């Protein structure tokens, strides 16, 4: 199995289900540990953001996640019908701020940007589409 495809709803409990599926997929395909962790964490952060902030209270959301392996890289695509959010445009948090000034907002997206080789975003037909690429050559 060189592709994984999952459909999730906007409930934080889904983050655990996603993590298990990603972990099993990475293990079955013998991905390097570092790459597997980077993928699992990045998808967790994106999903947590979308589920926590992307929908009106009580609205039902649909989030599709896929991972494919090709050309020496893992490519993950997340499609959701939440309000528009471009993770590539998010400002980096101030990583040198003192304890009292440290903001937690934006930290998750910063982790994604740091751990992935590429992060792409397009909004089309009312759907956010985020593409993550992690090279597997070490």
């Amino acid at each position, binding site marked *: 199995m060189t592709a994984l495809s999952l459909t999730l709803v906007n409930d*934080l*409990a889904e*983050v*655990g289900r996603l*993590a298990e599926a990603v972990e099993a997929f990475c293990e079955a395909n013998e991905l390097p*540990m*570092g790459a597997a*962790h980077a993928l*699992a*964490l990045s998808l*967790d*952060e994106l999903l*947590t953001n979308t*589920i*926590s902030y992307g929908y009106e209270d009580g609205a039902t959301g649909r989030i599709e996640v896929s991972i494919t392996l090709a050309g020496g890289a893992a490519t993950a695509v997340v499609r959701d019908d939440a309000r528009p959010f471009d993770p590539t445009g998010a400002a980096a948090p101030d*990583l*040198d701020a003192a*304890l*009292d000034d*440290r903001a*937690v907002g934006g*930290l*998750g997206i*910063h*982790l994604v940007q*740091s*751990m992935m080789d590429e992060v792409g975003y397009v909004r089309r037909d009312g759907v956010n589409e985020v593409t993550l690429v992690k090279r597997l050559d070490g």
Partner: protein
Amino acid sequence: MEIETETQAGVVVLRPKGRVDSNSARELEEALLPRFDAPAPVLVDFSALSYISSAGLRVLLLAARRSKATGTALGLSGMSEPVAEVFAISGFAKLFRIWPDAEAALAELAAG
């Protein structure tokens, strides 16, 4: 996630097991933050933790602020490679006192 708690050499040791993510961060928050109302130093030992996301970092940031406010010492130990990487990338490594293992942390935290 499960959290094992014990007192060693007068230090309260919290040992979360498994994953701290947006699902389980609240459990860690509820177990950890009230500890800073007492004077005993607090060690969060990550030796049984395989994973932490920014939701877990948020809880540790709150703990560090509580520690600073009340004067109850806080230390971290036993980070696996993925957990240490998250601390490094987020710039959190420099906000905490971090030891390679619980033994080393306990020796210093117990001494005050």
